[in-house]
């Protein structure tokens, strides 16, 4: 990677790049420097990933393009479709509405850590068994929200499931199958079907 000259401040290793502004921050003000690139370390599926990113790179692009974890999909890029949903410190968020720099020091879980084709997670098994997907584009997002939702509400009603999943769109409209799948996944998890531990999978750059 091309070396850049810059100052290192605090623990953020911020690099100051081409300060083009004519009137710089007054020195008496304790303002941190402006940067256009930054080095970050993020825990992704249990693996520490360090990379220098452009500050305008969204988290979903970082996950897909820099880490090669293409299980997280990107649809609308404005928070509406839910395809890009991941877990950030255990809670579901839209990875298209965050910048990668903002995830520094935090923990991310993507669908790659859920199960594998030969060892599906009970939620994935339930989606398969109930036809909770057709083309599969929306599925990774649904799965990640379902994982977080069932941890909080192990025995949800069908109405609660619908509200919890309202932030996801499925163009193939398999909604009925999805609601049934989530309900069955809850039962499977309660019955204690041995759940594969979230796998440490760093993706292509592992």
């Amino acid at each position, binding site marked *: 990677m091309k070396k850049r000259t810059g100052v290192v401040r605090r623990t953020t290793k911020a690099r100051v790049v081409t300060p083009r502004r004519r009137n710089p*921050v007054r020195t008496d003000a304790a303002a941190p420097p402006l940067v256009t690139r930054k080095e970050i370390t993020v825990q992704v599926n249990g693996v520490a990933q360090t990379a220098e990113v452009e500050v305008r790179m*969204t988290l979903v692009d970082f996950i897909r393009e820099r880490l090669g974890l293409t299980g997280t999909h990107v649809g609308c890029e404005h928070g509406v479709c839910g395809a890009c949903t991941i877990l950030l410190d255990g809670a579901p968020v839209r990875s298209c509405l965050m910048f990668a720099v*903002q995830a520094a020091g935090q923990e991310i879980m993507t669908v790659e850590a859920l199960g594998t084709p030969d060892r599906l997670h009970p939620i994935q098994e339930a989606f398969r068994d109930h036809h909770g997907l057709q083309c599969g584009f929306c599925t990774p997002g649904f799965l990640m929200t379902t994982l977080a939702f069932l941890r909080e509400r192990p025995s949800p009603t069908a109405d609660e499931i619908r509200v919890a999943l309202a932030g996801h769109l499925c163009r193939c409209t398999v909604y009925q199958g999805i609601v049934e799948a989530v309900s069955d996944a809850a039962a499977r998890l309660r019955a204690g079907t041995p759940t594969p531990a979230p796998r440490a999978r760093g993706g292509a750059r592992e």
Partner: protein
Amino acid sequence: MKPAPFQYAAPESVEETVALLHAHGTEGKLLAGGQSLVPLLNMRLARPSVIIDLNRVRTLDYIREENGEIAIGAMTRQRTAERSPVVTRRLPLLADALPLVGHLQIRTRGTVGGNIAHADPSAELPAVLAALEGSVVVRGPGGTRRVAAHAFFVSYLTTALGPDELLLEVRFPAHEHQGSAFLEVARRHGDYALVGVGAVVTMAGNVCQRARLAFTGVGPVPVRIPDAEAVVTGKMVTDGVLAELGKLVTHMIDPTGDIHASAEYRKEVAGVLARRAIRAAAERARMKQMRMR
């Protein structure tokens, strides 16, 4: 699409943020939960040259009880407020409205301060603040000032915040002894309201001593209709009074139509929701009175 290039800073204190705003306020944008701003950046409807990220300013994340008011720090996540026992117990109107703000994933990141500062004409929290006659605390280079809700919301997406000012906290008057209800009609759960209303009533026995209603989705800012509030004030909340209230609201409210709903539909819905909200709020107030006896 991808955001246009910008320069970025992540201050860790209010003082650092104020310094950054002072230097870059006019060309810059504060980034809170990003749930309204990042879509605008991704679609390049907004192209600020500087982004000041508030997410590392830990001191703006709190819920405090202060003299009959609950002060919520601007960077408190909507989801955190939704789960707060203080909010559930002392701010029932806010507790009603929060689950209607977007979806779970949006509220995990979205902040209380961001929702108020963004001032979307269909957002729930500005209407809650207006119905409660709450206020916000704002910090600029000249110091701190407090702004009442009615003075804070100026127009569509426009508030009394100056370009170099920062919203520090939102102050909601506690109303655990009053009755309240927030109702809305939206196309799906989590969508912005086509019409929403927050109602707060003070009851003395069966008589309504004071009623406040604030509507969202029917004007540039949260809409209060003093004449409608007067219809129920000093009266028993009977079907007749509620019918009169609904009619007056439908008559007086002046929404614009858009692709989601016509103006006529919004007027009609506003009247119905006003009726239902006052009925529910009065009912809850009576239950509280019974429990206290």
